[in-house]
Structure formats: C-alpha cells, structure tokens
C-alpha cells in the first residue's frame, strides 16, 4: 500500500512547514502554498511525511492510503 499527501486547500494557511520537512516532495508556490508532487510518497520519506501531516499548524496536510 502506498501513501499520498493531499492538502486541504481551505484550511491551508501557507505556513510552509511541510515544504521545509519534505523539500524533495513538496515545494512552495510563489504565494507560499504547497505544491505536492503528483506521485506517491517515496518509501524513504514516509516517516517525514507522517511528521509533516502531524506537525502542520493548520492540520491541512492529509496522508491518504492508496491501494
């Protein structure tokens, strides 16, 4: 089973923590909002992805299981 990161664009306030933790998978657009790579979270980044989701100050980052 793979994991995918999704952002709730309504609650996301552009704190940018997720991009600091997961720079290889998440970049920030020119307004500071996360742009998530269109791919499952690479196995080596799963732990960081979990942390990014837990630590998001707006609780806007969601880890979604994919079959």
């Amino acid at each position, binding site marked *: 089973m793979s994991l995918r990161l999704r952002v709730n*664009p309504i609650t996301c*306030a552009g704190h940018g923590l997720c991009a600091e933790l997961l720079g290889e998978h998440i970049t920030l657009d020119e307004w500071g909002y996360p742009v998530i790579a269109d791919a499952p979270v690479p196995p080596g980044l799963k732990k960081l992805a979990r942390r990014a989701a837990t630590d998001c100050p707006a609780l806007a980052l969601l880890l979604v299981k994919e079959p």
Partner: protein
Amino acid sequence: MTPTVLPVAATTSGITALPRLLPTAATSAGATMAVDLAGHLTRHGPLPYRGRPRLLLDTVHAAGLTGRGGAAFPVARKLAAVADAGRRAVVVANGAEGEPASGKDKLLLWTSPHLVLDGVQLAAETVGSAEAFLYVHRDEKLHGRLRAALAERAVAGTDRIPVTLVAAPPRFLAGEESALVNVIDGGEAIPRFTPHRVSESGVGGAPTLVQNVETLAHLALIARHGAGWFRAVGTPVEPGSMLTSCHQADGTPTVVETAIGTPLADLLNLTTRVQAVLVGGYHGVWLPVERARGLKLSNAALRPLGAAVGAGVLAALPASHCGLVETARVVRYLALESAGQCGPCLNGLPRIAAALGTLASLNPDEGTRRDLERWAGLVERRGACHHPDGTVRLVRSALVLFGPEIDRHRDGWCGARSSQPFLPIPAGVPTGEHDWR
C-alpha cells in the same frame, strides 16, 4: 434577473416532437407561457408514482439520462448511490443557475414548474426520501411563481412529501453542490473541502441527491413515457433533448430545447460576422468559428477539442468585438466570484484577471503572457472546488484562439470596432459576508 419570455424552437411531430419540457404555444397561457397545474396535467397526465423506492431506476438507466447542470453524470448511478446509502435521504432540486450567460433553468422554472416538481416527487420516491428542497436564485417574481405552484399542488394533493423553497444567493458558485448544502444547512454559499460526496453526507449529514431542475423535468417525462420515448431524440450515447442558452452575435439571447447532437450551426447564426463561439459558458472554451460550423452539440464531438456541452451555454462572438477584452471582463468577474478560501485561487485568480486585462489593453508589458501562463498552471487542480480549473480552461482557450489579437495589441492596435460589452456580467461585486447568504 426577472425571467423573460424567450423564443422557443419550432416543433416537429410524433415522439420526436420538441419542445418536451417547455410549453408549446398551444399549452401555454398566452404571453407569459406559464403553465398552471391544470394545463400541466392536461398535457402530460398524472404523476406516475411507482409505489416503492428504486422501481424507477431501471427505466432511468435504460433512458441514459445524464445531469443537465453541466457535469453530465449518469442520473441512474446517482439515484442508486443515494438509495443505497441506507439512511433517510434528502432531495435537492438545483435551480441556482449562477452562470450569468445561462437562462434555461429560470425559463423552465417559470414556464413549467410542475414538471420540475413532479421530478422532485419521483426522485424522492426512488431514493426513499421524505424531505425535499427547491433551491433557486433569489428573485421575488420567480419565487412567487414557485410558491403559487407549490400551493396549487397542496390543494390538489399531488405531492407525497413537502418541498421547501430555499433562496440561493446571487453568486456564481451558489449551485456548486457543497455550497448548496452549506446554504440549506443555514450557512454561506461557499464550497467545502470534504472527503465525502454529498450522496453520502449532504444536507444535515444525510445522503443527498442533488439534481439540476432540468434533469428532474426529464425524469418526470421518462417516468411517464419510458426510455424508448426519451431516446427517440439525441444520439445513442447521449440521448434526449436539452435546454440551451444561446447568445446570437446580434445580442439576442434565446433558450432553445434541442436534441443532443444538433449542429451548432442550427442553434447559432454563424455568419461571416461571427469570429468565435463560446461553448459551455464561463467555465467553457472558445472555439474558432470555422471549427464550430462543423460541430455538433454533444460531448462526443466537443471533448476531443477540450470543450464540453456543460449546461448548454453557447455564444457567438461578433467580429466587431475583441475576444481578449470580452474574456478579460469575464475572468475579472470570475476572480471576484472566488470564495477566497483556497490560497492558490485567492492569489492566482486576481493576478490572472489583471494580466488578461493587461493583454486586452494596448502595448502590454513584455512578460505578461508568460506570467499569465505560469499562474494558470499554479491554480489548476489546487482548489477545493473546480472554480480555478474552469477559469483557467477559459483563459487558455482565449490565449490560443486570440493569439493573433495579442500580437496586434503588442503592436499597439486592436481589431475591435465596438467597445460595448457583449457577454453578460451581473452588476455589482460581492463586498461582504452578507453577499454569500
């Protein structure tokens, strides 16, 4: 906007006769074209309740009816999903019609409210619902007409479940499903981000069937006449008729009920004085007129070009107008209609609108087009709803089709002879919270 009486397409005979939904001269009460309950029953016959949930599903499936609100989702699948939810469902007839260039739902509700309300009762029976709402843009005259129609039905005892009329705020996004649920639940007409479909959790958390009012009117006729009758017009893949809102190049707006698959050239007068055709409304695309002349009004014909039938809005842009100026006006309106909830839409749409405004003026800054294309990529698929995606679709098609005009503007001149606005935009902009309620 007050509903206006608009010309209706000529009729033919037999089971392929159109219009089906709109009144014919013979069935309408003079100039208002409004049909009362007695006239409705004379033309269409009594409401054919099935007596139990789900019994209508096979007929709707066989008819191949799809949603007429824009997404063309198969109605039988939606009905089945809500019926299968296992909890008491809610039915909402969506007549919000926030699209400024669309007039078909207003006209249908004005002329044939009983067909829509029959559809509400039959849909409610099919999904096992005891509660229904009719959600229509705030308009005192139209709401008065609908209250009168509901009162007629109460006296006649036609309805098995009560229907509550709810006013939709005059916003472009008011008809978006999650915004609609918010309003009926007492909130603002702004979209939600939710992992659930409204068919699982909608009004008050109940499984909710949201269908466009035209879709429900078709359902009411399919229940009476069957799938074969419905399929006698349209294409095998996209059967039936649909209401279209057509804006001719001379400025005349009409609502026409037409078979799906009708040539665009039968609906719009595509003379040499037309330069482009807008298909699918303000979330739609511009097509070159030479292309449009050979196209039919069906998703099978339009999707390969990145276009879709949508809610049936068509506009023929006259050669006297600048496509960039027209698109810039529409996109500015769309940017102001953003609910402003999602960062990319909140930041991107106003910049996209401003850049398009720059391209629509003479001698625009070098780099404007490059900025515009970058921002378009940054807002796509990043909103809770499809507003940014639809807006970008329109912008991209304008950049392609009006590319030569962009070059002319860069060189300091514009091909347009008229600065009169062509595409309709409502007056006023949302300024506060009260505007979304």
